[in-house]
C-alpha cells in the first residue's frame, strides 16, 4: 500500500528529471525546432566523445555481485545465440534514451537490455517478468538478514525450442570478426589514403562518432571485414564491408586544440562512411 502523499511525492520527483532543452516546452511544435536541435535529440546517446565536461575525481568501485552476474548473463545470452554483442550495445547504450543513459549505473543499463531483448524476442512475457520480480522481492521481504542473493529456478527447461541466431554456431572456431573474412571484396582504401567521413543522416544507431563526421583523416590500417554496426545491430542479413582505423590530427579536428600539432586520435570506421578526400 502507498499513501496518496507518497504517490504525489514520487510524481514530483519524476517531474524534476529533465532531459530536454530547458528553453523549449515539452513536446514542442515543429516550428520551434531547428535542424541542429532535432539532430541533437536524435543523436545516439552513447556518442559522448568530445562533449565538454569539467574534470571530476576518478575513482574505482567495488564490484557488486549483481553487476558481475549481469555481465555474465549478457555474455551467456550471446554465447547461446539469443543476441549479438552489437544488439546488446544498442539496446543497453542507446535505446534506453538520454535520461536513463545518464541517470542509471553502467550495469543497470546492461541489465535492462537483458530484460528488453528477452521480452522483445518473445522469450519472456513482461507480466511473467513483473510477477517474478515481485516474487523475488517478497522472498527477501525482511531484508537480506544473512540470506544469500541467489537465483532459485523452479525447473530446468530443455531449450530445444528456443529460437537462436546463426552466429553463435557459425563463429565457433573462427571468432568475430574473422567469421566475416573474405566476404567484402577488395578494400576501397589503403593505408595512407586521405579520406573524409561522410555526414550521413543518423537515426537510431551508429558507431561512427559525431566528432569525426565531416572531418578529414588518413587511413592508418585496413582492419577487418564485418557488417556495419547499424546493420549488424538488428540481427538481419547484412553484407560485410571493410573497416579502417582512421587517424585524425587533433589540431585540425578540434577547434582551439591546445596540444601539439602531432597529436592524433584514431578510431575505427566502416567503408560506407568514408569517401576519398578531395
Amino acid at each position, binding site marked *: 500500500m502507498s499513501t496518496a502523499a507518497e504517490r504525489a511525492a514520487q510524481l514530483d520527483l519524476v517531474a524534476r528529471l529533465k532531459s530536454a532543452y530547458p528553453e523549449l516546452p515539452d513536446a514542442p511544435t515543429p516550428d520551434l525546432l531547428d535542424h541542429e536541435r532535432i539532430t541533437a535529440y536524435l543523436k545516439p546517446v552513447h556518442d559522448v566523445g568530445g562533449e565538454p565536461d569539467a574534470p571530476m*575525481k576518478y575513482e574505482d568501485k567495488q564490484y557488486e555481485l549483481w553487476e558481475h552476474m549481469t*555481465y555474465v*548473463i549478457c*555474455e551467456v545470452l*550471446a554465447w547461446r545465440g539469443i543476441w549479438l554483442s552489437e544488439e546488446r550495445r544498442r539496446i543497453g547504450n542507446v535505446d534506453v534514451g538520454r535520461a536513463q543513459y545518464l541517470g542509471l549505473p553502467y550495469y543497470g543499463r546492461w541489465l535492462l537490455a537483458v*530484460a528488453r531483448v528477452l521480452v522483445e524476442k518473445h522469450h519472456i512475457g513482461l507480466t511473467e517478468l513483473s510477477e517474478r520480480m515481485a516474487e523475488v522481492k517478497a522472498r527477501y521481504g525482511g531484508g537480506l538478514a544473512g540470506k544469500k542473493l541467489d537465483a532459485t529456478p523452479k525447473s530446468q527447461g530443455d531449450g530445444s525450442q528456443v529460437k537462436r541466431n546463426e552466429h553463435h554456431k557459425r563463429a565457433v572456431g573462427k571468432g568475430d570478426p574473422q567469421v566475416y573474412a573474405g566476404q567484402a571484396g577488395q578494400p576501397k582504401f589503403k593505408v595512407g589514403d586521405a579520406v573524409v567521413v561522410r555526414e550521413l543522416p543518423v537515426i537510431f544507431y551508429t558507431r561512427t562518432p559525431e566528432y569525426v563526421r565531416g572531418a578529414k583523416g588518413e587511413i592508418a590500417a585496413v582492419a577487418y571485414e564485418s557488417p556495419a554496426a547499424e546493420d549488424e545491430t538488428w540481427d538481419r542479413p547484412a553484407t560485410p564491408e571493410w573497416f579502417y*582505423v582512421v587517424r585524425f590530427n587533433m589540431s585540425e579536428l578540434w577547434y582551439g586544440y591546445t596540444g*601539439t600539432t602531432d597529436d592524433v586520435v584514431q578510431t575505427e570506421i566502416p567503408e560506407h562512411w568514408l569517401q576519398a578526400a578531395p
Partner: protein
Amino acid sequence: MTDHGHDHDHDRTVKPMVDEITDFEVLEIALRELCIEKGIFTAEEHRRFTEFAEQIGPTPAAHLVAKAWLDPEFKKLALAEPMTASKEVGVDWMEPTGFGTPSDFTAFQILANTPTVHNVIVCALCSCYPRPILGNSPEWYRTPNYRRRLVRWPRQVLAEFGLYLPDEISVHVQDSNQKHRFMVMPLRPEGTQDWTEAQLVEIITRDCLIGVALPKAGVTTNVITDTRPAVHPGTAG
C-alpha cells in the same frame, strides 16, 4: 581521510537501515531464473561463464609486456600476432565459448609506445576494453567524463592522472569503438636493467596498459586507488 581510509562522499551513498535487496538485484535474479526455467541457457552454462569471468585480470597482460621487454623476438610476435602472443601468457581469445568473450570480439592489437609517441586508449561510445587479457575495466574508464574528454583534451586528462608529457612526445589516442580491442605496450623504464620478468611485472600496472600512467621502478600500484564501496560485493573485479 576518514577512519576507513577513503574519502568518498557518504552523504550521497544510499545506505538503507534494513539490508534490503536492491531493484537491480531483484531484476537480475528474476531474469536468471526465467532463463534457466525456459532453457534459454542452463545453470551449468551460467556457472561455467561465471568461473571464467572470475579468473580474468591484468596479470597476463603485464607478463606479455615484460616478456616483450626481455625478448625482442617475442616483442615482434606481440605486435604482429597479438592473439598468438597472448597464448604464451595463458590467454586464449577464443575461450570460453569457442568464439571468445562475445562483448570483446577477437580482434586484438597492441600499441607500442616509442620515445616520441605515447598511446592511450578509451571507448567514447561505451567501454570497449581488452577484458580477456586485462580483466574488467576500472569504473573511471567507463565514466562519460573520461570518454567525453580523452578524445579532445588528452593532455589535460593525462595530467589529472599525474602524467605530464613534453611536447616532443605526441599523444596517440585510440578510440576503440567497434570490434578491435587495444592495449598499450609502454617503454621499459630506466633503472630496471637486470630485472627479472617477475620484477618487471610488478611495475606494469593496469593503468600503464591503458596508457594513463608510465611504469616506473618502485611504483607498483595504479594511480587511482580510492574505491567506492559496494552495497553487496561480489567476488570478481
